């Protein structure tokens, strides 16, 4: 654990919603080319944590934050840190599949690229194709790229959202319960995808499904009431947790 390259590092991270504390003193690392799972009962601050890794938390009125998060050893909370750059390097996929309803499949996949300014059409075409292939969606949609993105099934929509994130070529991917709205088959596809993606990216996945964490994650952090109770190699969290509360949670005694 010590020798692994650290991609992101939260140091004494605290976060509030209108004065109500949602995260307390979180210290946690995210490693390159590894999948890190964030587990815990609902309302424990999992989403709040990952939403601080791309500084989306503070876009909510009344939301505040203290502490530091390092991306490649640079504190993303330092004054005048470039938020656009941060969010392009740290991409995010949300719980509910949210393709933009007014856009086609192609436009959805290209939405992030086009924000950066004028990009020649062949370059966009190439990026869209690569991203859709990475997201294991290309074969299903290559003949209907002009159809609306919301016409796809839920699982396809979520993979489209993953493609949209990948197309920006991030370094870290945050997935906030990406499968909770999906059927088991789509979930399986996305888990496979995560296995593929970690070859190139650092991945953080929030899940309330412990089997899922056990299947996909190299490391797992257990959150409870806004605190990081325990962080370790996934196997240890599930078989030999050090903290009684972790044990209770992973054995299903609460949560």
């Amino acid at each position, binding site marked *: 654990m010590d020798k692994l390259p650290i991609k992101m590092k939260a140091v004494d991270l605290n976060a509030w919603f209108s004065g109500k504390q949602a995260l307390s003193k979180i210290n946690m690392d995210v490693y390159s080319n590894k999948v890190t799972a964030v587990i815990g009962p609902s309302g424990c601050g999992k989403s709040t944590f990952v939403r601080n890794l791309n500084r989306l938390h503070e876009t909510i009125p009344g939301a505040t934050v203290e502490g530091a998060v390092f991306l490649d050893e640079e504190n993303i909370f330092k004054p005048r840190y470039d938020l656009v750059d941060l*969010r392009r390097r740290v991409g995010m996929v949300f719980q509910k599949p949210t393709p933009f309803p007014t856009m086609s499949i192609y436009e959805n996949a290209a939405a992030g690229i086009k924000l950066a300014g004028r990009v020649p059409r062949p370059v966009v075409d190439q990026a869209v194709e690569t991203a859709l292939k990475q997201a294991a969606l290309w074969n299903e949609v290559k003949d209907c790229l002009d159809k609306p993105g919301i016409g796809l099934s839920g699982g396809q929509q979520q993979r489209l959202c993953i493609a949209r994130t990948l197309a920006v070529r991030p370094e870290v991917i945050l997935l906030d319960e990406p499968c909770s709205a999906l059927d088991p088959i789509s979930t399986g596809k996305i888990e496979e995808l995560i296995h593929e993606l970690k070859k190139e990216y650092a991945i953080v996945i929030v899940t309330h499904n412990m089997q899922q964490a056990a299947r996909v994650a190299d490391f797992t952090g257990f959150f409870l009431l806004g605190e990081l109770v325990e962080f370790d190699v996934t196997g240890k969290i599930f078989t030999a947790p050090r903290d009684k509360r972790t044990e209770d949670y992973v054995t299903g005694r609460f949560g």
Partner: protein
Amino acid sequence: MIDSKLKEKAAFAILLAATIIVIAPVALILAIILINGLPALSFEFLFSIPRDGMRGGGIFPALVGTFYLIVGTALFAIPFGILAAIYLNEYAQRNRLTRAIELAIINLSGVPSIVYGLFGLSLFVEFLGFGASILAGSLTLAIMTLPVIITATREALSAVPRSFREVSFSLGASRWQTVRGVVLPNAIPGILTGTILGLSRAAGETAPILFTVAAFYLPKLPTSVYDQAMALPYHIYVLSTQVPNVSVKVQYGTVLVLVGMIFILNIVASYIRSYFRKKKTW
């Protein structure tokens, strides 16, 4: 058992009666306007100038004047209204100042239209020296319409789920890119509907144009924005109160044209609304 069935029937009867009482006067008014107005409608009536001291001829100058006023109102009210709404909804901090502005906008939409008319008279006609003109009238109507457009636009913007904005931010979009690329395209139907309804209300107003643009009788078309113009609502007022012995046919014909115009605008607005509501999926 029987009791509850009876109550159900009574409730149904009362609701139906209430609906009929509400609809009947509107239907009656429309019927009277149609019956009396339709015989007057003709190509000549629509496209020729009034004659015989407005007792005959057509209403072309008033029709054109009202058209110019709608266009002028739209030119001023739509851009400012939409931009202000975007600012208030997407940019402004929630603080005392924005709440005061919001309260002011709500109250502005309740101000009687004659007050807007007097305001337009003192600001545009006199102080800014535009004189009674299409410019002054359009500006007055625009100010009256702004709160409607701002409120409708804000509602349409608020209806776009926050999740779309978050996705856009998460892709590295700035606030303006988010508004342009994601929020506005999803809000356009609501904005259009509200805007058209606001304009159609402006088209039928008399008080705001009374001192700012409306001409009693002007048998030629305006040639510049500084010209006075006839307008349908004021023309109706003139025909029914200021000129003796105008035939009922001419009066109702004019009313029918104005009501028809507003009706068409409203139908377009509700068509847009229902068309996009069917397509909406979030």
